[in-house]
């Protein structure tokens, strides 16, 4: 309590100087005093009392009515003091939680880490940014022994920590699949069984899975209720939607997914994304899918990583640098054989 006593003396000195001089400099010191008091967890009722005591010392024969009014004020400030203290405790708890979530998010990043495969046939770019700390989107690359590239883009319906748990499960399931079973249909069939067996009802995952055959330049793909993806054809400079029929993962355990394929020509660009990209909302309006595609088209001449970075920067700015949804975009461009 000694610090309160010395503060009390400071307060009294400030107050009496102010009453004499009405000096702005002293008001500034009063501001410092209040900040200091907050740092020392001194509650508002305490401050009112400090004022009351100081006043009594400065004016020993304070009017009885004034004294009474201060008692009244102190009484009404008690609840503010309590609310203030509770607020402090909840704030500390919040900081604690935040740092825990930070640790969890780091762990998620480590767990879900995937490296972009290097191959002469295609140039791959990827950008995945969570809206909050935990990412509810997921992407994953696999390269088989022959050098073919598998790519998954997924979105958990539901966000935050439960979504992150679900993603880790999917990743480990995918890693347990053997290297010669990387056809999209097989992968989605199997993942669907894992998800419906292990995840409680009401948690669903959409996934688009593609396999790029680097020898035949066929792109095989299947979709579990995911956003359609696109191919920007080099010849026509037009986007072609690619989509396949299939239920979300985890809805029903015995589902067969459709698998389709398409030829990829030199300079063609495959675009995989999550709805955080196509459904990003700005000032109440949804960004049209076309807008995304236009940005990609504008930067089509750049390399894949530069393209995804450009799209992300554009969106970040549109949304005032506060993403509303997780953003994941993968671009794969078939290199021209001359440039090899």
């Amino acid at each position, binding site marked *: 309590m000694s610090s309160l006593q010395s503060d009390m003396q400071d307060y009294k000195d400030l107050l009496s100087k102010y009453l004499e001089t009405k000096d702005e400099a002293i008001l500034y010191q009063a501001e410092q005093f209040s900040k200091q008091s907050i740092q020392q967890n001194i509650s508002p009722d305490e401050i009112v009392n400090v004022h009351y005591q100081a006043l009594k010392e400065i004016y020993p024969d304070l009017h009885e009515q004034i004294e009474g009014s201060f008692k009244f004020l102190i009484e009404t400030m008690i*609840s503010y003091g*309590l*609310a203030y203290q509770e607020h402090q405790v909840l704030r500390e708890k919040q900081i604690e939680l935040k740092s825990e979530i930070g640790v969890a998010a780091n762990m998620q990043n480590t767990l879900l880490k995937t490296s972009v495969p290097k191959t002469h046939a295609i140039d791959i770019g990827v950008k995945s940014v969570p809206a909050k700390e935990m990412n509810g989107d997921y992407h994953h690359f696999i390269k088989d022994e022959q050098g073919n590239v598998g790519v998954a883009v997924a979105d958990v319906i539901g966000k935050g920590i439960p979504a992150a748990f679900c993603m880790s499960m999917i990743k480990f399931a995918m890693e347990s699949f053997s290297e010669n079973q990387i056809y999209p249909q097989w992968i989605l069939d199997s993942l669907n069984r894992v998800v419906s067996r292990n995840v409680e009802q009401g948690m669903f995952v959409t996934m688009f899975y593609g396999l790029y055959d680097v020898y035949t330049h066929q792109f095989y793909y299947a979709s579990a209720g995911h956003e359609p993806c696109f191919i920007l054809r080099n010849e026509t400079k037009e986007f072609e939607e690619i989509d396949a029929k299939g239920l979300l993962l985890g809805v029903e355990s015995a589902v067969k997914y459709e698998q389709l394929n398409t030829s990829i020509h030199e300079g063609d660009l495959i675009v995989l994304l999550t709805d955080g990209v196509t459904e990003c909302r700005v000032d109440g309006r949804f960004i049209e899918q076309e807008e995304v595609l236009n940005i990609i088209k504008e930067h089509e001449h750049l390399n894949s990583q530069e393209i995804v970075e450009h799209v992300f920067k554009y969106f970040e700015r549109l949304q005032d640098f506060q993403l509303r949804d997780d953003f994941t975009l993968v671009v794969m461009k078939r290199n021209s054989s001359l440039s090899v």
Partner: protein
Amino acid sequence: MKETVSSVVIKKEWDIVGARQAGRQLSQELGFGSVDQARIATAISELARNIYLYAKEGEISFEELYDLPKVGLKIVARDKGPGINDLSAVMQDGYSTSGGLGAGLPGVKRLMDEFDLVSDEEGTKVTAIKWARP
């Protein structure tokens, strides 16, 4: 109304005021400062309101403590109501239906120096002590 009452029956909302008054008088006599008086009164309010709201009927009693040179006031709120199920939940900040007002039982604990809570299906007993600052 000047005499020191050592226990107040809580039945009607109005009785809360009587309990506050009794507590204030005692705390004044024991030499508590104005902030502490106000804190004690607020704690009494919370306890008496809980009796009135959740147990319908009960009693707040006071005891002067002399552990010289310390003097203190002990408040006991007792009722034969339904009791409180999950004590640790109730004692957590933010649980009270007042939500964010910092009041409720955690508030009482904060306002006072010592706090104890016993409750079962037979009723609830809250004991709280405040020591006067010398």
